[in-house]
Every structure is written in C-alpha cells, then in structure tokens.
C-alpha cells in the first residue's frame, strides 16, 4: 500500500494543519484507507467545519418539533399520532458535471434520508438555479436536470408537487439543484440512526458497491477549476427502480421492531454511515469489508469505504432477526449481508481478508473533526436609489407587464413541472403552479402544504435582509393556500467560506433567517450546507433555499390563487410603500441593479399573515396570492391567467407613482379575492387587527383594465407567460 504523506493528504483535500492534527491524534501516520476515511469525515460536506459555529444558533425548537437537525431529516407533529419527516439537500456539483444523473441521484438521496426514518415519502419538491439563458450550457443543463428529477421521482412513484426555478448569470459555472422530500410516519414508528447495544449485527442492504463517486464528498466541497474533466468519472448513476424496492423492503422490515438503528449511505457512503451510527451510540463498530457485496472486481478496502454507489443502507439489527430480515430483502431481490457488529472499543475497526486494515477511534472522526471560526466581512446596506417620474416617462404599464410576465424568472414553469408526475399517490389537491403544493394525508381529512423559495438577488444586495425575507416568503406561500405554517428546512448554497465576503454572506443570511424563524415561530428542523459553489474564483450569489411545511386541518378548506368569480372584490392586505430597488421591474425594465432589497417588518409580516389565515379559515376569502416578484400587477396577472378571469382596477388614489404602486416589491402583502357580500365583514376584521389594506379592483371577464391604459386580454397574457420557456427549450 502507498505510504501516506502530506502531499497525499493534500490531494485528498485536507489542509496541512489538518493532516498534522490527524497524525497527532492517532499518534502515528494513518494508512491510505484511514486517510481516505479522515478526508471524507473531515470534509466540509460531512463535518460542517465552517458552518457549525453559526448553525448552532439556529432556532430549532418548537411545540410541534419532534426531531430537529442532527438526524437524517427533521420531524414535526401534525396531530393524531401522525408526523411529517422532511429535509432538503443539494446536489449542485454533480449536477453540473452530469445533469441527468446528478439531479436524479440528488432526488434519490433525499428520498432515502426520509424513508430511513420510517416514513413513506409523500411529496417531492425541487429548487433549481441555472446560469443566464444566453449562456451556452444553460439549456442542456436545464433539460438534463429536469429529466433527471422527473426520471427518478416519477419512477419511484412520489409526486413532485412544487418547486422553484431561477436564472442568473452567477450560476453560469455552478448550477444549483436542491431537492426536498416529505414523508409521513406514525409518531411511535420513527427510526433513528443511533446505534445501541453490543455485538449487534451490522447489515448492508440494497445495491452492490461499485467504484462510483469515490471522492464524491470531497468533490462536493471542492471548487471547480480547469481540472474538472479529470474528476468526471466519479459521477454516480442512479437506479430508481432499485430504490423503489429498497423503500418497500425497508418499510416492510420496519413494521416490527427488528431495527435498532438505520442510516442511508449518502455522501462518503459506508464511511459516514458506519461512523455516524457508532458515534451517536457512543459505541465501536467492526466491519468485514470482504463481506460487502461488490459489483466490480478487486475492490480495495479504500474503495469500498469511500464508494458512493447509490441505493444502499446500513442497519443495526436486533440479534436473531437476521433470518427474517434477509427473507424480506430476498423477496425484493436486494442484496443483504451481515458485514460486522457493534463493539465496545469505541473504534471503527476494519478487516479485509482477515487482516486489520484500519483502526480509528470514532471520536477522532466526529467530535475531534476541525471546526473553524472563519473570518467574515460584514456587509453594508446599499444606498437607496432615488427613482423619479422621469425614469418612468416613456413606459406603459401594459408593456411592462408583458415584459415581466415573459421574463425568465417570472414566466410559467409548466414546461418543467408537466414532466414531473405530480399526481401519483392520488392525494395531490394542489399541483405545481400555485403558491404551495398540497397533498392530503392519505385516508384522513388533513392535508400538508409545502413550498421552496429563495431570493438570491435580495440576499446578494443585503444578506441579512435577504435571509429574513426568504423565510417570510415561505411563510406567506403556505398561508396563501390556507395552511398553518409549522416548520422549515434549509439548504444554504454559498461560495467559498475561506473568503471573508462569501463567509460574511453566509453568516448574515443565517442571522437573518434565524431572526425571522424565531419571530414567526417557524423553527428549522433540518437542512444542508453547500459551500464552494464557485468557478475560477467567482462565487454564486448567496442562495439560501428555504423549504416550508404547513398543515391544513381539513383539506376542504384549502384555497388556490386562481380568481374565482366575476364581481368579487380584490384587496391588497399589507402596505404598499413603493420599494423598487432590487425588484424585477428595476432590473428588467429600468436596468438598475443596485439598491437595498425591500425591508422586512416582522410585526406586520406576522400580523398580516395571521389575519389572512384567519379569513381563509372563516371562509371569507375565495382566492389568495402573496405579492412577490413583479409586485401587485404581476401577482394579479397570474391570478387572472390561472382563473381565466380579468380585473378592473379602481382609479388609483395613493400618493406614490402608479409604477411604484403596481411593481414595487414591498414585503408582507397578500392579494385576496372577497365576495361582495363579505367585503364589510373582511374590512372589519382587518381593521380590528390593524392590518393595512387597499381595495384595488373588481373581478371581471377576460381582460385586465386600467383606467388610462388600453385593456389587455388575459388569454394573450397567458400566452406571453407560457411561451418564453417553451420556445427557449424548443429552439
């Protein structure tokens, strides 16, 4: 075997100091297998060495939280002994290298995180971000990613109910693919990854191990450079069919109490799964690597430990349950092998052909892993831009609206979500295209709403405000379908933590999201950090993605955003101040990219949200939509398009300019549709709760009509909205 030295350690992505620390801790030099194990466990992806310090501050507690961060996924209580397990995870680097397989295995990985805990997956979501549409690679990356997400989710039979897609040139060399899964489990049947008990058999199940993805975990944390070509062969291929079998087999085995601990083999495969189970149980673990089912010949212990072959699980079983467990995996035609046992050595001990090939104290891999307090730079709030009437002089509202509706970040994403099976399992009651996806809790009156959101330009302009904003937007999207927001998961996609600017973006976004999460009582229960999203020294815009989950007690109370009937009155709840900086209007129409993002007033945010939710529960609202990208006008236009209805705007009476009124992106606002006979009731409730509101128009047939501008046909707008992506992908 190769003699390990500092250079080899550095090739494994370790820093000089880190290698030195390993030798000191071990009191000897590691051998190659051991070095591989250290490099995987001490890697950013597994150790969270740059982020840990800041993540500790997150608000993770709440009355409904059953399991916060630290397990395979978070768990929340939704009543009647039911719980929802959910998490979001990134698969950015692999998806850039091989979009189909990268995205597919991303979905596969997050599904495993959820069913490892005993939950049957009931919904998938995805948040995907690509470079500028004019970038050469964008189209094929988008196509590959969408087909990969669909290919995996559709095959395994879990509906993809919502998502988010954005384009920005900062992703030209680093696309983002974040996948989220929700699962349903009974509260007393949740499985954890903490091993317990001595001499318990350790079982390997699922697919065979090949040389795929060796060093995937280090790749996920390495910045891209010109050497990227060399790293290509490490891409894993997903097999959703096997995952479906693995899902059914695991759930079948979970019906009784044979399992003590279970952990999927994700990043760093057998290494991280075995170390984590042992570490949580404060135990040792002994593995016989020649018993690991291999797909290829002559695989070395090093390769077996670091392989990232997909669709595999590690289980600690009760003694005596092996036979029954094996029968289940045989039935599903999956590999099953007893590969080791738990021990009291507190070490991970590996054997191969009867030789001991590695022996490392588990603590050194987990607790002793490095933790950094990286330097970070505080950002300044940019100066507000002073727009004047002159800036809007030659603009027509109708032209602006058309342009915004057809812009890449606002246009309809139907081309994407029509390729995702969003109805399998028969419980989808709100499909993609609304504010949140909604599925019924099978066989009950309850329903679960879920959404993913992010806002890189706000975060880039001012990380702290952006971090707050995104949690609030998630909250609003849940409220808009009538769901009570319960908890969130987060996927923190950032540049290089070794650069103070990037690290600062991270720190401040996390602070912002934490502040909103606390104020709204909307705790973080799971998440994932993806650093080093940079190419040739250029990082992406900071992109924290928030996945939110909410509960609808009776699914019949769910509402949608499409306008329902002519004659109804449209309100905007929340104050319109005219904040245009960082808006899509400023960027797309005025070509102004500077300025601060809109401010968040958490008091108003909470107050407006709670009142709107109450109005929905009281059945006083026919449709609702939050005001987001593109402001009131864009929001209304989407409601018109979906409902095939129009609106007649009342003569505008406010103080601010009409462009500011229609296109500003002030936060904490909702558009609601109210029956005429309920208008007074609604006003009274809004007044009583001190919510600011404006009555802005009335639902009519087929057109958007604004006093002094030509009317626009909603059918035409629908085409503008839909055509951009269709045409882009066809040509």
């Amino acid at each position, binding site marked *: 075997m190769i003699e390990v030295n500092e250079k080899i350690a550095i090739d494994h992505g370790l820093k000089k100091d880190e290698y030195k620390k390993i030798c000191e801790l071990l009191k000897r030099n590691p051998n190659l297998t051991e070095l591989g194990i250290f490099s995987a466990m001490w890697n950013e992806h597994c150790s969270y060495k740059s982020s840990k310090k800041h993540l500790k501050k997150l608000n993770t507690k709440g009355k409904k939280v059953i399991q916060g961060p630290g397990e395979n996924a978070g768990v929340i209580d939704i009543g009647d002994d039911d719980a929802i397990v959910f998490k979001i995870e990134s698969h950015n680097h692999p998806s850039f290298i091989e979009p189909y397989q990268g995205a597919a295995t991303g979905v596969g990985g997050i599904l495993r995180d959820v069913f490892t805990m005993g939950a049957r997956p009931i919904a998938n979501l995805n948040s995907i971000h690509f470079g500028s549409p004019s970038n050469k690679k964008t189209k094929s990356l988008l196509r590959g990613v969408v*087909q990969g997400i*669909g*290919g995996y989710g*559709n*095959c*395994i*039979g879990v509906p993809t109910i919502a998502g988010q897609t954005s384009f920005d040139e900062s992703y030209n060399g680093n696309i983002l693919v974040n996948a989220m899964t929700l699962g349903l489990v009974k509260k007393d049947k949740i499985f954890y990854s903490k091993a317990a008990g001595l001499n318990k058999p350790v079982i390997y199940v699922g697919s065979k191990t090949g040389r795929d993805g060796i060093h995937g975990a280090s790749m996920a944390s390495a910045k891209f450079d010109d050497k990227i070509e060399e790293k290509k062969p490490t891409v894993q291929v997903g*097999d*959703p*069919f*096997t995952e*479906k*079998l693995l899902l059914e087999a695991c759930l079948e085995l979970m019906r009784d109490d044979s399992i003590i601990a279970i952990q999927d083999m994700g990043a760093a495969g057998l290494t991280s799964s075995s170390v984590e189970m042992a570490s949580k149980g404060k135990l040792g673990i002994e593995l016989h690597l020649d018993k690991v089912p291999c797909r290829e010949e002559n695989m070395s212990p090093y390769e077996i430990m670091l392989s990232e072959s997909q669709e595999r699980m590690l289980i600690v079983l009760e003694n005596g349950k092996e036979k029954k467990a094996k029968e289940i995996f045989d039935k*599903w*035609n999956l590999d099953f092998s007893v590969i080791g046992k738990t021990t009291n050595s507190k070490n991970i001990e590996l054997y191969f052909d009867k030789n001991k090939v590695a022996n490392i104290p588990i603590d050194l891999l987990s607790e002793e892993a490095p933790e950094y307090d990286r330097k970070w730079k505080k950002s300044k709030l940019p100066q507000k831009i002073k727009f004047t009437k002159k800036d809007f002089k030659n603009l027509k509202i109708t032209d602006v609206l058309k342009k915004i509706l057809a812009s890449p970040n606002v246009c309809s994403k139907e081309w994407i*979500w*029509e*390729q*995702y*099976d*969003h*109805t*399998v*399992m*028969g419980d*989808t*009651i709100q*499909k993609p295209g609304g504010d949140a996806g909604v599925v*019924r809790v099978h066989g009950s009156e309850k329903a679960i709403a879920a959404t993913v959101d992010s806002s890189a330009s706000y975060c880039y302009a001012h990380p702290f405000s952006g971090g707050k904003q995104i949690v609030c937007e998630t909250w609003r999207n849940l409220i808009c379908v009538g769901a009570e927001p319960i908890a969130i998961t987060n996927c923190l996609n950032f540049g290089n933590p070794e650069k103070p600017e990037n690290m600062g973006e991270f720190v401040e976004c996390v602070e912002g999201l934490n502040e909103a999460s606390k104020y709204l009582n909307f705790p973080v229960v799971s998440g994932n950090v993806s650093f080093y999203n940079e190419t040739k020294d250029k990082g992406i815009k900071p992109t924290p993605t928030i996945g939110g989950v909410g509960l609808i007690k009776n*699914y*019949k109370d*769910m509402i949608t955003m499409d306008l329902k009937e002519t004659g109804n009155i449209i309100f905007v709840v929340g104050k319109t101040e005219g904040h245009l900086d960082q808006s899509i209007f400023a960027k797309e129409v005025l070509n102004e990219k500077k300025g601060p993002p809109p401010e968040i007033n958490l008091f108003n945010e909470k107050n407006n949200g709670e009142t709107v939710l109450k109005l929905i529960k009281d059945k006083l609202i026919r449709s609702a939509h939050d005001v987001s990208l593109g402001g009131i006008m864009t929001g209304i236009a989407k409601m018109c398009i979906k409902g095939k209805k129009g609106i007649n705007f009342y003569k505008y009476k406010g103080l601010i300019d009409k462009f500011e009124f229609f296109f500003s992106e002030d936060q904490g606002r909702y558009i609601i549709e109210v029956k005429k006979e309920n208008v007074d009731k609604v006003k009274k409730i809004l007044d009583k709760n001190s919510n600011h509101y404006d009555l802005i128009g009335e639902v009519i047939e087929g057109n958007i009509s604004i006093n002094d501008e030509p009317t626009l046909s909603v059918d035409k707008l629908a085409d503008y909205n839909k055509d951009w992506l269709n045409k882009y992908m066809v040509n």
Partner: protein
Amino acid sequence: MKSSVIIFPGSNCDRDMDVALKKFGFKNKMVWHNDNVIPKSDLVVLPGGFSYGDYLRCGSIAAKSNIINSVIEFANKGGLVIGICNGFQILIETGLVTGALLRNKYLKFICKNIFVKANKTHNKYFNKIKKDILELHIAHNDGNYFCSKDDLKSMQDNDQIAIRYCDSNGEISEKSNPNGSIQNIAGVFNEKKNILGMMPHPERVIDNCLSSNDGSYFFENLLSNMK
C-alpha cells in the same frame, strides 16, 4: 364484486387503484407477481408504474413474470382485465392487446389532464357513461400508440378502439394529441372486448378535490355492468 390488482416490482399506482376500486364497492385483493394463481376475481387490474424500472422496453420484463400466465388464462376465459398505463404496456408485451407503445413524440414525460372520447358500443367499460367527453389524467413517457395499417383497420372494423384523445369540445385533432399516438388512440380493447388497455389513469381522478372527478363514471359504470 371481486377484483385483483397485481403488484410488480416497480408498480407505483397499485395502491391508488386499490383505493379507487374499494371506493366504488369492489372487494379488492393485492396479488404479488411471483404468485402462481389469481384469487377468485371478476376483474383483474394491471396497475400503472414503472415495473422493472421500464428497463429494456416498458412492460417487457413484467410480461415474463409468474403471474402473467394466470392473467392470460383468466382473460382467455373471458374475464375482465384492465391495464392502465404501465399495465397497458404490459398487456401489449404479453400480446393480449394489439400494437405498440412508443416513446412520446416530443420525448418528454407528460403529466396533465386530457380529454377523451369513449367508444360506448359493445363493451362493459364505457357503455352507459352519460358524459360524452371525459376529463382524465395521463402521466407517462411511452404512450405513443402505434400499430400497422392492417391492424388499425381491423380494430376499427371491430370497434376495438376504446378511447381517443380530444379537446374539451370533443374535437379529435393533432392539437389534442398529447403524445403522437396514431389516430389519437388512448386505449384499445382486444377482439372480445373483455380486455382494456389504456394510458389515462381513471384512478387519479375520482374526487372533486382532485384534478377531475370523471374517473368515477368509469368505475361506477364498470361496477353496474358486473352486478
């Protein structure tokens, strides 16, 4: 009425079908692909999904499973057999219905509501349904129905074309054809019309809170014919 839904490795609409059949009054049993006999049934359903991951050709590997022989036997005796989506592909691969299901014309998976016009003559599946145009749901990659001219003619002559894609007004045209199927065919019968293979999923549209409720008519009609 007794029904059986066969589960193949990779089936994923088996539960949905079970739920639908029970909702409309069938006593349903789930049958594992490795079993040799189907329990006593009035109806056998091959559900949707990705049996064997759709590897090789959709439905081709499931068509070699143990249980298929008893499905064929059951069908040959005149028993009612439905194949939905992947189930349709399996029926094609076993030769129980004619034709082939190729990759969708635009090479994309399509998940959406569509409209179909049903053939109501001489069959127990659509005969007494009052609505002329049904809003059902499709979710597939390979639903592009193809057969030879001769086969098409003989199927037409024998009323074997079960449902065709149309628009909300019943117009059957290229525009309302989601996947390139010849003659907008969405489903076919065998000669005796006891076997139905179709791409749309009636089991996903059986409640007003779902994307349509028209699947209910399908199940209600079927049940009324079996009593």
